[in-house]
């Protein structure tokens, strides 16, 4: 069932032409990198046929090819814009999946609520389209002429595990947080959204709906697909679910148990990725003042 489900998704996506459009962003372009907003086509949303997802793409101007980084969208209506440190080192694509800003017409995702949108029917579950958006973004990054196809990484939440499992060309996978992993069990110990959406569903859904919802989320649990990941991996999560995910990632995963000192943790994550891709490590905390033009 699992393999057929994802093969069907791949087939649906393959039938949709990418139709990539790059719009240059002069305000974010510098002598060191070229920055664009992109839109592209992915599978349809509830019968729409096709859907336009979006992203930010920054390519260094120095001679390439460059290591590539796919920033997996976070759970939230907005994603961070790629940081200057990453634009300087990598060809970097930050995806906005369907429902997020820049990709929210006609579907404007609810927050909270995205996690359970369509959950009782695996063929209608909103994450089917979201995974497709991730897979297409991975293809776009890999096919860019400025990208070294042997040095591509995915970073972000555990949606990246599904992406790397279905597109096994990633050299590195950095999992910075859990969303889809072991979701019902993790929901039992929180009243915070997005996981609380599952508790809401459990309180108010029928028994049949609950069975269907669990069946859907089982398909999307990264634990089910982690064995297909060939990339070197870092799981940055100190929970039992994080440990379980790391153990399923082919036995090659590193783990970083967050210390709570997020400057130290962020720098460690940056250094791990840089080492995987052959780039220098950089901290986002500036050593000194940075003059503005005209200072």
């Amino acid at each position: 069932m699992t393999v057929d489900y994802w093969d069907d998704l791949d087939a649906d996506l393959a039938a949709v032409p990418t139709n990539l459009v790059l719009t240059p962003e002069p305000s974010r372009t510098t002598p060191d990198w070229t920055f664009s907003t992109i839109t592209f086509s992915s599978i349809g949303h509830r019968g729409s046929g096709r859907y336009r997802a979006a992203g930010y793409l920054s390519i260094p101007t120095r001679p390439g090819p460059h290591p590539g980084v796919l920033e997996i969208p976070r759970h939230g209506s907005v994603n961070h814009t790629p940081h200057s440190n990453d634009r300087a080192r990598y060809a970097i694509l930050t995806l906005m999946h369907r429902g997020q800003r820049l990709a929210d017409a006609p579907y404007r995702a609810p927050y909270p609520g995205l996690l359970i949108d369509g959950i009782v029917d695996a063929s209608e579950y909103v994450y089917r389209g979201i995974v497709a958006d991730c897979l297409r973004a991975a293809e776009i990054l890999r096919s860019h002429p400025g990208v070294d196809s042997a040095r591509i990484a995915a970073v972000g939440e555990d949606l990246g595990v599904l992406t790397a499992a279905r597109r096994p060309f990633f050299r590195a996978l950095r999992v910075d947080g859990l969303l889809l992993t072991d979701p019902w069990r993790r929901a039992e110990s929180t009243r915070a959204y997005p996981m609380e959406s599952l508790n809401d569903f459990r309180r108010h859904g029928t028994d049949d709906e609950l069975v269907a919802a669990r069946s859907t989320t089982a398909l999307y649990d990264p634990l089910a697909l982690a064995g297909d990941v060939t990339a070197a991996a870092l799981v940055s999560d100190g929970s039992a679910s994080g440990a379980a995910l790391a153990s399923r990632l082919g036995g090659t995963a590193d783990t970083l148990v967050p210390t709570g000192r997020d400057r130290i943790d962020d720098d460690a994550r940056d250094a791990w990725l840089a080492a995987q891709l052959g780039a220098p490590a950089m901290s986002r905390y500036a050593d000194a003042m940075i003059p503005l033009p005209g200072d």
Partner: protein
Amino acid sequence: MPSDTARFTPRGPVDVDRPDDLDAFWNEALAYLERTAPAAAFVLDETMSGDGVDVFAVAYSSAGGVRVGAWYTRPEGAAPGADLPGILLIPGYISDPTVAKSWSLRGYAVLSVAPRGKVRARDQIDPGYPGLLVDGANDARSATYLGFYLDVVRGLDLLADRDEVDPTRIGVHGSSQGGGLAVATAALRPDLVRCISAGAPYLCGIMSSVRLTLTYPYQEIREYLHIHPEQRAALETAYSYLDVLNISERVACPAQVYIGLGDDVCPPETGFALVERLPHVEQFLTYQGCAHGAGLPWVNEEIDAFLERHLSPSPAAAREHDLIGGNA
């Protein structure tokens, strides 16, 4: 981890000019807000309610007739006259407004605001993220952020008007944008706010911050100046009206401020500058090795204790702590 205020070397100064007509500007802004009636609607969300908490989807009108939103949570079944302490919760820059069940399980009535541009509040004004910080910002009176501040103030007024809330026991809390605007709200409604807990405060020393980081949202200003260098003086003037440092001396209540000494989003120097200006800093917590999370694993208990001291909720379950910076 204990708080550590001793070991920090500033990288540069935090300066902001104070406009001569600053008080008139804010009086005019608050009068503008009053021209629009709130027309607030609190609708119980039965799907999200239960297990100890009532959840309401809120819509209200704010400055310029803009319809914005909020989530309101309270202990399940709280009746008029319950005299609940209130918390106004303000989201971070890119965060989606929290449905604050964990706070209400602890005995608080909580209004978690969704100002203009946020999810459920973007039908009329939607500057985007990035975008909000520089939208219309070469004139303080046209800056979208001015309306955003006023949306938060209006949220405080609505919370104080709830029948089940004790209007003399309202605190304001948030981190990052929520921290900066907690201070701003207390400055603009000094008679209504009992205490503020402000983490990693944003919008303090705005133009100085742009020189201390390349991280968003402040990076929006650098990028704006990249293509509009002629607007620099106008931006500096406009931000001097909106800069929280310039109104922080109006705050009349006790404040708790906490920062990470390695914060690349809101430079720690600006947190020190805020503390120097706030009249009643009860607690200033600084954390080595921490960035924009501002000591979350350790500071949560300090936040709970500070708010309990000033707002006296009825005994209730311990609050589930935010360990991933969901409000940042």
